[in-house]
């Protein structure tokens, strides 16, 4: 039954397996944290929400520490794990550290959010699920194999559906079922594409050697179609155009820490896998692939910005802004990892901090007024100067204007796009560049709506309304964002 070749190599393979396990320190920390949280959940009372949050924060800190140790010891050319299923290199590890910091921020955000004061909210389960998503994302960014990519993506997706449904209210149920149906459909499309890729190349591994070994199969248009279908789940994860419909509903229904997490961590990991996939496209398909992604990026950013323009709900507006940002995550995939690989990490940090800050202040606004509708913002800027100014910093970061580091991130991406255009002379890249710049200008209209309402509009009543916000942490975010603008060489 089993082939001889496999049995003879058994001891070698077992050794390889055990050796691979020694590189997964960060993942073990998450597993231990998940185990403790399950133990806590055995006795269901609402008293252990502080326990849950402490265990979550401790787990993420330990995980960051472990990843940092692995980063110090990793060899420069990387390490293949589990028979080339996963690859570990310094870039992956830095990305994992960013993801872990996002998880840490999510738990801190939860402790300060209005969700924390709710009576029947299942805290330790919520933290357990966030840790599970982190585990899936850690494995996703290392994946080099279709099976590993599918399984880790499914871990992330399935747990996200549950998390959106978790407070079990009416709007959560509705958002969650829409999210699930879109997600399951895109997963089906991705799997169909993966099965065709497997049939064409005879292997589940995704590396340049496999692509070049099957030259005839890769040359057929069917391969490109299968490859595009395989990227379906990734488009869904970064909420890019064909599969973006879930974003506004989920963002409106989910609680703020969850939405801040969902709009950063899975998007960054998904965008990275998309960049990795694009690096595999052989040279004769590259122009077609670039045009295809450029068209998606153009449509995505235009739709996102126009959708955001008419929103009156802060969270829905940020959801459309996050759709518009999906197109900027496509740019490194278009220009290739050699031009934009390092910028991607910078962009990931800037985008995460900006998004977290904006959602944090939106949550503070919600704690005061009990709604995310913008109508109460009118004219209260003179009582809340700090709140307004720091909100402006986050919105300018998301829009990409100086003096915030969002400007640098956009400048890098656009200059990489220009460089790619001068090399390849593909007209679509120039169109993308022009429309991208125009959209950045157009996006100002809705990003500056909040500061406009705060400072320019007149207040309806003469009452003094002061929003309590967590100034220490928000000013820290804003300070980092401005520091990254000036002290760029600290980072790169």
């Amino acid at each position: 039954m089993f082939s001889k070749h496999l049995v003879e190599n058994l001891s070698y393979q077992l050794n390889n397996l055990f050796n691979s396990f020694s590189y997964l320190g960060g993942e073990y920390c998450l597993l231990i944290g998940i185990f403790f949280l399950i133990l806590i959940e055995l006795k269901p009372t609402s008293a252990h929400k502080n326990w849950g949050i402490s265990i979550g924060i401790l787990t993420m800190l330990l995980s960051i520490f472990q990843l940092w140790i692995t980063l110090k010891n990793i060899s420069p050319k990387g390490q293949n794990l589990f028979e080339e299923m996963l690859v570990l290199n310094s870039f992956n590890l830095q990305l994992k550290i960013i993801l872990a910091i996002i998880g840490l921020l999510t738990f801190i955000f939860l402790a300060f959010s209005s969700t924390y004061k709710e009576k029947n909210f299942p805290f330790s389960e919520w933290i357990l699920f966030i840790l599970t998503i982190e585990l899936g994302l850690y494995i996703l960014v290392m994946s080099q194999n279709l099976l590993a990519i599918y399984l880790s993506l499914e871990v992330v997706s399935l747990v996200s559906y549950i998390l959106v449904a978790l407070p079990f209210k009416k709007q959560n149920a509705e958002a969650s079922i829409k999210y699930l149906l879109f997600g399951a459909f895109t997963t089906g499309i991705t799997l169909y594409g993966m099965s065709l890729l497997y049939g064409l190349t005879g292997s589940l591994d995704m590396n340049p050697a496999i692509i070049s070994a099957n030259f005839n199969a890769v040359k057929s248009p069917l391969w490109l179609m299968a490859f595009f279908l395989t990227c379906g789940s990734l488009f869904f994860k970064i909420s890019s155009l064909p599969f973006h419909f879930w974003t506004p509903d989920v963002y409106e229904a989910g609680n703020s820490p969850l939405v801040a997490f969902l709009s950063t961590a899975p998007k960054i990991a998904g965008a990275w896998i998309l960049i990795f996939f694009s690096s595999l496209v052989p040279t004769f398909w590259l122009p077609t692939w670039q045009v295809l992604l450029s068209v998606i990026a153009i449509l995505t950013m235009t739709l996102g910005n126009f959708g955001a323009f008419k929103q009156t709900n802060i969270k829905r507006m940020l959801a459309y802004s996050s759709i518009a940002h999906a197109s900027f995550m496509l740019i490194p995939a278009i220009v290739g990892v050699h031009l934009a690989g390092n910028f991607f990490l910078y962009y990931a940090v800037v985008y995460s901090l900006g998004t977290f800050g904006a959602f944090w202040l939106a949550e503070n606004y919600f704690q005061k007024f009990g709604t995310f509708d913008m109508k109460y913002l009118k004219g209260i800027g003179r009582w809340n100067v700090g709140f307004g100014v720091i909100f402006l910093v986050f919105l300018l970061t998301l829009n990409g204007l100086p003096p915030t580091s969002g400007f640098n991130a956009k400048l890098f991406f656009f200059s990489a796009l220009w460089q790619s255009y001068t090399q390849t002379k593909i007209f679509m890249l120039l169109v993308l560049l022009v429309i991208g710049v125009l959209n950045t200008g157009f996006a100002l209209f809705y990003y500056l709506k909040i500061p406009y309402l705060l400072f320019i509009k007149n207040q309806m009543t003469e009452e003094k309304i002061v929003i309590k916000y967590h100034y220490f942490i928000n000013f820290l975010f804003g300070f980092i964002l401005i520091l990254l603008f000036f002290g760029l060489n600290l980072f790169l």
Partner: protein
Amino acid sequence: MITLYVSLSAFLFSIGTLIVLTKKNIIVILMGIELILNAANLNLIVFGQFDKEYLRGHVFALFIMVVATAEVSVALAIIWLVYKYFNTTNIDELKTLKE
């Protein structure tokens, strides 16, 4: 022979996609999604015949079945929640979140 199987799976994929795009009942949409997953499974098993040494296609198909079961159980739990609030499983009637 392989052409027949691959055509059958393409046919299943098309039916599944059509069901997802046209039907209104959430449970029927889930059935369409299952058809798409089974199309992928069929493809993987057919192509796995040429990969006798490692049987990666078969292994992948097994994983898909297990994960699909998990997905359906989560979906049914959420559908139960939706039914509790909306008293319907028609996807068009779920529109409290639209503006």
